C-alpha cells in the first residue's frame, strides 16, 4: 500500500523534464516550453544568452508556455528555460537560423 502511494505521488514528477523549442520568423524569436506529455511550462523564466553566456534578454512564459521577443543580436544564441524546482533545459539557435529568420 505504501509502495502504491509512493508510486502515485512520484509518477507525475517523472514527467517534469522540461523541453524548449525555438524558431525564428520575421525578426522574432518564438519559444515553446513544454513537458513531454504536451502540458505547457507556465511562468517559466526564459533567458537568451550569447555564445559567451552573456544574458541578452529574459522573460516569462505565458499560460501556453510561449514566450517571444525580437532578435536581440545576430549571432548564435542559447535559449534557456528555467521552470519551477530547478527544472531547466536549453536550445541553441544557430547563426544560420537567426539570419534566415531576419
Amino acid at each position: 500500500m505504501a509502495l502504491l502511494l509512493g508510486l502515485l505521488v512520484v509518477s507525475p514528477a517523472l514527467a517534469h523534464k522540461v523541453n524548449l523549442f525555438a524558431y525564428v520568423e520575421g525578426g522574432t524569436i518564438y519559444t515553446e516550453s513544454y513537458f513531454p506529455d504536451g502540458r505547457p511550462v507556465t511562468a517559466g523564466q526564459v533567458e537568451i544568452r550569447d555564445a559567451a553566456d552573456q544574458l541578452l534578454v529574459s522573460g516569462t512564459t505565458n499560460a501556453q508556455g510561449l514566450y517571444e521577443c525580437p532578435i536581440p543580436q545576430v549571432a548564435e544564441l542559447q535559449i534557456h528555460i528555467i521552470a519551477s524546482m530547478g527544472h531547466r533545459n536549453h536550445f541553441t539557435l544557430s547563426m544560420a537560423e537567426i539570419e534566415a529568420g531576419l
Partner: protein
Amino acid sequence: MIKNFTAAMLSGLLVLFFVSPGLAHFGVVIPSDDIVTQGENRNIELQVKFIHPHEGHYMEMEKPRQFGVFIAGKKIELTSTLKKQSGHSSDQDQDFSFWQTDYQIRRPGDYSFYLEPTPYWEPAEDKYIVHYTKVCVNAFGLESSWDAPLGLETEIIPLTRPYGLWQGNLFSGQVLVKGKPVPYAEIEVEYLNEKAEQGRLNAPSDPFVTQVVKADVQGVFHYAMPKSGWWGFAALSEADWKLQYKEVDKAVEIGAVYWVYATELK
C-alpha cells in the same frame, strides 16, 4: 565431392521450393532517424518497401494508394512526394521497385507515418495482400500522439511508446480492424537484416526467421526484442471484402504493420 555438391544443391532447391510460400511479407516504412533532437538533421528520409525483412528479398511494389504523416491531430498527404527507386537483396538478380521520400521536421511532436499500399497479388497464396504500415518519429521531446489511432482499415496501436527503446525491451501493442480489437490476433515478428548495424541476425532454423506471437482476448500482444535494430510487427487478418483477379473474387490478407527501433545496450 561432386555427388555431395549436387545433393546439397538439390536439397537447397527443395528447401527453397518448400519454404518460399511461407516467407513472411512485410510492408516497410523506415525513417532515417526515429528521434530528432536539437542540432540533428531535421530532414527525414523514408523508404517504403514490400519485402521479406529477414532475408531482405524485395517484391515489386506499385505506387502506394496512400502515404502520409499524422502530426498534431492532422493527416498530411505525402503520396505525391514518393519517388520510385529500385533495389534487390544480394541474392536476387533483378531489381524491384520501392519508394522513397524526404520529409522536413519543423515542429516538436510525434510524426506517425502511415502507408496504404496498392493490393499485391500473391499467386503462391492465391490472394491479395495489403499491409497498412506505420512508424513513428519523435521530434524535440514532445510525446504528443504516438498512441493515436489513425483510422486505418487495420492498425497496431502501440501500448509501449514506440521510440527510445533498448534492445531487450518489451514492445506491446493492440491490434485493431476497423477500430475494434482483434481477439487472439496472430502477429508475425521479423528483424530487418538490411538495416542491421551490429551484424545480421542469423536463423539456425526456419521458426527463428519469423517469430509468432498471439494476442490476448483484447488484441494485446507483447514481444521482447533481443537485438538492436529495426523490428517489424505484422498482425494479419482476412478482409471481409474481396478483390477480383482475372474476374474471380479473391481473398485479401490485410496486415497491420508497425516498425520500431531497438537501440544497442552499451
